[in-house]
Every structure is written in C-alpha cells, then in structure tokens.
C-alpha cells in the first residue's frame, strides 16, 4: 500500500489546525524553500514532473516558466479552488482537512514565481471549506506564516480569499480571472495567456489546490523522489474522487501509475448489489467514457490520453449495468447547457441544441438521424470556441454515442429504454 502524501493527515482529529499541522511536519517545506533560490525551486518542480491536477494536466514548471522575465508589473498567484467538474471532490477534502498544506504550498509557489499577492478563488457553494480555510489563513497570519517577512525570510505574501457565486465556467482559468476582476465569468481570448497578461492585466499563474499541496513534500524530499513515484512523464500521487455505483465512494490517493481497475475494485470495493460494471468516466464528466473492457489503463495523464480519454480532474464516475447511457448523457448535456457562459456562438447554441435532442430521444420522440446529427454537431463545434469548455462537452457527446450507439438507436426505434424497460424518465427538468 503506497504512502499517503496529500491525505496523510486526513484521519487525524483537528487536522485542519496549525497545531496539528506543525506537529506533523508542516511548514518545513517552506522553510527549506526559503533557503533556495526561486530558480532552484523551479528546477525541483521541473524534475518532479508535477502536472496540473485541476483538469488540464499541464506540467507545472513549464507553466511557471511562461512568466515574462522582465516585466515591471506585479505577479499574481491564483489558487483555483473553484472545484466544479462533476465527479470531483478532492479539493474540498484538502480545504477542509489540510488547509495549511495549501497555504504552505501556495507560499512556496508564490516565492518561486515572485508573487506577493495571491488570490484563493473558492466556489461559492463551498461554505464550510471557506470557513475552515479562512480560519487557517487567520492562524497563519497570526503565526507569521503569511503577511510580512514570512518565517523571517524577508518574503511578503498577502492572501485574499475570494468567493465565487455559482458558475462552473469560473473554474476555467481565464473565466476565473474575469470573475475575480468583478465581471461575468467570461473566459478571455488567448493569446495573450495569463502568464503574460492575466488578472488586472498582470502576469498571473493559476494553479489547482491539489497541485500546490504537493509542493511542501517536493521541497523536503526532492523532485527526483516525487518523479520516481510515477511514470516517465508524470510524477507523484494524486487523489482520485470515486463515486457512482461503487461500494465505497470517496477520495483515494494513489500513485499515478495505478490502474482504473485497481481503483474501482481494490480500493472502492467494486460494484454493489452484485451488478456488473458497464462504463466508467475516468477524469471528470469532460473525459471520454470508457467501457468495462477498457479499465486496464494507468491513470496518469499520458496513459489515459493514449487510451482515448483523459486524466482531467481524476473524477471517476462508475456506472453499472442498470445505467441508461442516453439518460446519463442527457444529464451531462443539461449540465453543459446550464453552465455554458454564452459568450461564443458555437458553445452557446449547440449545448442547448444537444440537450434538447437528447431530451427528445428520452421522451420517446427520437428520430433515426439524431445520433449522427449529434456526432456531427459535436465535431463541427470542437476547436472553434474561445475556451476548452465546449471541447469538454464534446468528449462525452462523442464517446457516449460512439461507444453505446445501440442504446441510442433502441430508444429512437422503440421509444423507450431497453436497459430499464417500462421506466419513464419523468419530469425531464431542463433549464
């Protein structure tokens, strides 16, 4: 059983307090970092092969490297705590049970990139995590672990906690920036990228909560150690959020070399009620669905990409044989239609269109051309939008229809479901 890193304090009572954090080795990573140069820290992160754990899987050191070397403008570090990807809840656990790990991690990052003002954008619905994290920040300030000359290092860092107000798109880094700036969460045109021109027109780095929480141990144990835990291209462990038809839904921390089969059966207890696995979404709802035959894949960024899906936010949604796939897709289509910010035409119009087609199929009025139209609509919109939100919607649109085509055809041909015969999907509550 691999060593828990991110989750090692979770079962300790009062794990969210500074006292417990310090008793369990907290803030040693930061102390070590202050003895290093920012360049050396960046190098350690590079060697660690740490990749972003919010969804995009982008190498963290490479992202930090995009900052301009010679800009007089202040730099901002934004912590993306706007967790919203369906199937994902790991950041919530980190905020509630180990907030100081985030504080330490973001301070290390801020020091490495030369930022003295950091924003933590927490989704509005996360009220308990917000309170716990705010208390932890308060403790940190009191203890000289935030604010002026942290740990006597001479490095200053102010933290502003900014609550969201209910919009999934604010998890997209430039949507988050727009929201932070006091506007609608409309993503911005790229280029310019946030590292060059981000929040308030200044160079900005946006990192996920979990990504930053890894930094303290990377500092104390070294980048090579972290890299060795994983694959050639991705180091360390990550927290997998498992939900749906499993015996033990919850967060599980495993090295990125773990397979989906291990995760579902060895850790989450397999499928309850003696049922069979039908399909799994491995990386949050925006990841392509995998069939029961496709779960022998390692759950690292490249492994899942090669398997035709993505690691995304590591939100694993398990579906057993009782699941009507067209219905599952409709639920997601409703999600994307509701969360589309509306700024650009392809996403705004087609997310609504796809939801309507699926609702019609489920209500028994599907037409033979519907599945091919769905595929065509998705393919035509992919790659044409301002941000990757729509591409995230396209992944389920295409993969569910392609891999479970016969279920869609059955609904259309028979006007009802073959998986759950006689079940009427009532009150198709749309938006």
């Amino acid at each position: 059983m691999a060593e828990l890193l991110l989750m090692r304090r979770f079962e300790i009572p009062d794990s969210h307090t500074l006292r417990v954090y310090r008793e369990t080795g907290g803030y040693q990573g930061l102390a070590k970092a202050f003895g290093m140069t920012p360049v050396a820290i960046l190098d350690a992160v590079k060697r660690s092969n740490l990749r972003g754990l919010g969804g995009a899987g982008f190498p963290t050191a490479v992202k930090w490297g995009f900052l301009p070397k010679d800009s007089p403008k202040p730099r901002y570090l934004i912590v993306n705590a706007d967790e919203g990807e369906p199937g994902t809840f790991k950041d919530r656990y980190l905020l509630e049970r180990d907030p100081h790990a985030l504080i330490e991690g973001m301070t290390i990052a801020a020091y490495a990139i030369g930022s003295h003002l950091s924003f933590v954008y927490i989704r509005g619905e996360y009220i308990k995590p917000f309170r716990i994290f705010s208390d932890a920040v308060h403790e940190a300030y009191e203890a000289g672990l935030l604010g002026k000359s942290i740990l006597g290092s001479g490095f200053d860092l102010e933290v502003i906690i900014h609550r969201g107000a209910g919009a999934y798109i604010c998890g997209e880094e430039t949507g988050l920036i727009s929201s932070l700036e006091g506007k609608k969460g409309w993503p911005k045109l790229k280029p310019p990228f946030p590292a060059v021109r981000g929040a308030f027109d200044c160079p900005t780095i946006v990192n996920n909560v979990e990504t930053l929480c890894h930094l303290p141990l990377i500092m104390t144990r070294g980048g090579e150690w972290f890299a060795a835990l994983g694959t050639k291209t991705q180091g360390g462990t990550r927290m997998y959020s498992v939900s749906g038809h499993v015996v033990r839904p919850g967060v599980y921390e495993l090295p990125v070399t773990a397979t989906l089969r291990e995760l579902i059966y060895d850790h989450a207890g397999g499928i309850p009620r003696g049922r069979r696995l039908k399909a799994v979404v491995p990386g949050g709802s925006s990841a392509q669905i995998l069939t029961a035959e496709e779960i022998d894949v390692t759950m690292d960024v490249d492994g899942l990409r090669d398997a035709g899906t993505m690691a995304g936010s590591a939100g694993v949604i398990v579906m057993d044989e009782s699941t009507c796939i067209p219905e599952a897709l409709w639920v997601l289509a409703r999600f994307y239609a509701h969360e589309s910010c509306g700024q650009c035409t392809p996403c705004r119009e087609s997310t609504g269109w796809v939801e309507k087609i699926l609702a019609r199929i489920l209500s028994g009025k599907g037409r033979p051309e519907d599945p091919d139209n769905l595929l065509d609509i998705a393919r035509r919109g992919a790659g044409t939008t301002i941000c990757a939100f729509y591409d995230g919607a396209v992944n389920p649109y295409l993969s569910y229809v392609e891999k479970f085509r016969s279920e869609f055809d059955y609904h259309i041909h028979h006007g009802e479901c073959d998986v759950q015969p006689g079940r009427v999907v009532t009150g198709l509550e749309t938006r």
Partner: protein
Amino acid sequence: MSLAGQMTAFTPAQLDEVRRLQALYPDPRAALLPVLQLAQEAFDFISPDVEQYVAGLFDLSPAHVHEVVTFYTLFFTKPVGRHILSVCRTLSCHLLGAPDVVAYLKERLGIEVGETTKDGKVTFFTVECLCACEMAPMMQVNDRYEGHLTREKIDRILERLE
C-alpha cells in the same frame, strides 16, 4: 433587512466593509462579487434597487451590475425563503436517485422546483454538481451539505428547519 418603502442603503459599518474590500484589490471593481454577497445578506435578495445602489458604489452602470447578478446562480433576484434547499442533479447524484429526492421534496413541500413554500420557510432549487458525489444523492441545506439522502433523512432535515 430593508423595510418596504425604505431606500436601499448599507449601514455605515457595511459601507466601511465595502470600502475596505474595494481598497483590498488591485482594481476596486474586483470587490463587486463580495459586495453583492454582502448586499444579498443585508437585503435578502438583489432587486433592481439594490443593483442600482451597488452600481453607484462602484461607478458602474446598473446594466453591468445586472449582468453580473444574472450570470451567477447564487445571486437571487427574487425573494427566497428562510431556508434554501439545493438538490444536486448532475451525474453521480442522478445515478443514485436525485430524481426521487426531487420528487419527494415536491411532495413534502407542496411546491415546484424554484418555488417557495407559502409560509416563506423553504425555497427549493435543483443545481448542478456540488462536488460532493461521494455522498450522493445529496443537497445543500443553507450552508451545509447533506448527503446519502433517504426519505427518512429528508424528513429529519425538514423537521429540524425552523
């Protein structure tokens, strides 16, 4: 709470908080979301009067405040009940029975989704993923997450609401 006919305005203490927030950020406009959250707490919901008032505090056109308020789901533009139940309806919750939770709440409360009970006690919404899938089916009750919902648990939750 603003009384009928009274002009919408923050108290001096609330105004101090507004100015503090505006000074906190590199651009004062960034304080708009926290100030709107403050306004919603102070005035229960965000009416056009409140939007206009807040616009004045930020030197923004009221239309741009209205844009922000209508964009985010946590800003209420109509009065809501004392308690807000937000039932998650996205994938894991749906697979584990969210439609039944919704149906049961409609039955127990006697209202449709988005409505408020006649006694002003409860407003009931369905929302997208609250990222508590491990406790599906679940809902947010005011500032708490309540999961692994069954009829019995829902009954107990409703009973405890004042």
